């Protein structure tokens, strides 16, 4: 419903602007994205800003409702030769896109259309996720985030905790004090693998898969059953047994972030992209803050992984549309657009100049945006290495699901931690081998 409504709106809008510029018809091209609701409207706004800024091109932005559907529909459209010029593909779909040969590399597109882009302007911590092993960027980082931890500082103060916890041991101590002070749910938890497996592994310098997290070869295997990830699950399980950690899922009634925002729970892990939502929904006067995801005591902290999505330019469109696509991608990378996008959404700026401009404007100094700079700090803490560059695995959506289901069994049904994760790894590896066979003979460059 919403899709067709948006499409109708886009079509209607295109008639209007066509009427305004009768002299020369603008080249139209499509952009499919996976954001809906408030964020989806912000994307439409960005498209409108682009259309208003020039007369040669007209971008038609269509929401596909979510990331998985966007990848799905892009595949279907590509097979039917009706693909959009630009598609927004989430982190987990990166390898599928890379091996598809269905795209125009970012560098080539901009060079062909006469744009001189300083590629080193992208934060390496962000760009490396979407770049080849040799560092060439294939898609454009767009909406980027990373995981952080949210603290209700008012509650912590009431419980006698004065400083933001830095390690998981500190968090457990703070949770104990919260519990003693009468808070039922010191920390909320769900089975999202993104903070718990992916970010945790990067920060603790642990591999997720062999072959440099899959960057070197399609023969990579998942290894999370042999890393500190297991220790982390044991730690959380102990916290749960001590009633310091409470599972919050949709099925039980509430996800961690709504639980945090309604002050039912006092600590929660989530994306920095929720910073805006929490700020808007939490009761006034409540002091809250975000911090980098904690580490275990004695760990030398590494950079975290970027999440979100990037923009891929699809192959097989007329040359005119590529001019438009290049103009649009150039437009949204301008510092003022970067700042606007980051302000209205909560996603982080992806270029150094964008970030510097925002810092200079004092964006990060005052509420409600104070704290968001933590995400950039977390992403650029250390140079990207094999364990912290990103994850390059096929079937990654399915792998996330296997591990998430294992966590569900562990935290809801008291299943054995090692056994469940072993099983999830084994099942994920079957998927990885099938992926390797599907792309037999392909090499990662």
């Amino acid at each position, binding site marked *: 419903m919403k899709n067709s409504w948006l499409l109708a709106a886009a079509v209607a809008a295109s008639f209007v602007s066509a009427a305004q510029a009768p002299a020369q018809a603008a080249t139209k091209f499509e952009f499919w994205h996976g954001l809906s609701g408030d964020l989806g409207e912000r994307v439409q706004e960005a498209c409108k800003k682009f259309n208003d800024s020039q007369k040669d091109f007209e971008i038609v932005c269509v929401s596909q409702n979510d990331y998985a559907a966007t990848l799905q529909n892009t595949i279907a459209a590509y097979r039917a030769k009706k693909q959009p010029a630009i598609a927004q593909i989430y982190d987990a779909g990166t390898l599928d896109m890379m091996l598809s040969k269905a795209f125009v590399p970012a560098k080539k597109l901009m060079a062909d259309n006469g744009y001189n882009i300083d590629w080193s302007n992208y934060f390496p911590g962000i760009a490396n996720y979407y770049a080849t092993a040799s560092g060439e960027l294939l898609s454009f980082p767009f909406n980027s985030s990373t995981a952080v931890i949210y603290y209700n500082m008012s509650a912590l103060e009431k419980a006698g905790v004065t400083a933001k916890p830095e390690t998981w041991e500190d968090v457990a101590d703070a949770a104990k004090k919260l519990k003693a002070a009468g808070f039922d749910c010191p920390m909320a938890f769900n089975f999202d693998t993104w903070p718990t497996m992916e970010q945790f592994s990067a920060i603790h310098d642990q591999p997720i898969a062999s072959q440099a997290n899959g960057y070197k070869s399609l023969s990579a295997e998942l290894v999370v059953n042999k890393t500190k990830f297991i220790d982390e699950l044991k730690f959380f399980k102990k916290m749960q047994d001590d009633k310091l950690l409470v599972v919050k899922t949709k099925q039980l009634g509430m996800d961690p972030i709504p639980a945090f925002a309604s002050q039912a729970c006092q600590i929660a892990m989530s994306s920095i992209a929720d910073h805006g939502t929490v700020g808007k929904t939490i009761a006034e006067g409540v002091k809250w803050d975000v911090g980098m995801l904690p580490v275990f005591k004695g760990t030398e902290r590494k950079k975290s992984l970027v999440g979100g999505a990037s923009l891929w330019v699809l192959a097989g469109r007329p040359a005119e549309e590529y001019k438009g696509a290049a103009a649009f991608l150039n437009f949204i990378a301008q510092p003022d657009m970067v700042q606007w996008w980051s302000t209205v959404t909560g996603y982080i700026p992806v270029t150094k100049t964008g970030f510097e401009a925002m810092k200079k404007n004092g964006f990060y100094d005052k509420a409600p945006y104070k704290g968001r700079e933590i995400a950039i700090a977390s992403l650029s803490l250390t140079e990207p290495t094999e364990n912290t560059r990103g994850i390059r695995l096929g079937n990654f959506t*399915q792998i996330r699901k296997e591990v998430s289901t294992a966590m569900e069994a562990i935290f809801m049904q008291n299943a054995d931690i090692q056994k469940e994760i072993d099983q999830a790894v084994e099942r994920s590896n079957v998927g990885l081998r099938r992926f390797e066979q599907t792309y037999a003979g392909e090499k990662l460059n």
Partner: protein
Amino acid sequence: MEKRGAFTSWWLPIAFALPQFLLILLFFYWPAAAVIKWAFTLEPPFGGNAEFVGWQNFAQVFADPLYWNSVIVSLIFSLSAALFAILIGLVLALAVDRELPGSGFFRFIYILPFAIAGPAAGMAFRFILSPERGLMALVNQSYPDFWNPGKYGSHALILVIVIFIWKWAGYTFIFLLAGLQSVPRSLMEAAAIDGSSPLRRALDIQVPLLAPTLFFLLVTMMTEAFVGSDTFGIVRHTTDGGPNHGTEVMVYRIVDEAFHGLNYSGASAQSLVLIGLIMIFTFIQFRFVEKQVHYK
């Protein structure tokens, strides 16, 4: 001599059948052929070289214990959902058929849930029966985990079955009420004069005469519960197949593998197995059950 209307030319019947034939070709045989091709090959999602792999996709599906788990979940789901939806529809239809005051109103009310889309019903029930915030939260406060579909697979399965029944009892109700109205009034009146109670009349006259309708509903409801879009929609919006695969019905697994795992080949193989299973069910039902249900 039997007199039959027949077409004299050969092209006219074909011309009449053509639109329907084209539609079936486009929306059934063509996709089915694509699924068969996919089931025996491995092809990159964006297209490219499809490598023929023989029965490998099927072998992987059958070797997966979670696949068999989904078969069992599907069987439990469709059997209990079909039986209870028919049973409840029957009781409601018998009640409305007595034409007591207000039965017109109740007829309307009973049909109403059928007008609601499965996913919407799933969303609503997820909130209504949520263990921490819904109606059962009160019970859970005194008896922790008395009802917790987020924790126990059995509770979650009951939850999705209840939602399915809630919606489809209205559908069986329509058919059964229509069936009841074709039961001759004279039979009922004669039985009433002989002094049999409403319950006796229902069991001895109405239900046996409804046998063909009940059989039809059994076949359609089983199929609907097995492969219907509501089954997927309800599971997707209520439990997401969880906890720990507890409500992972076969259709949910297929959609999940194909569209989230991008494993079109494995999903296609599962689809073919599912089509085969449905054919076997329907065959058994027609071969062995239908024999018992003719008017005698």
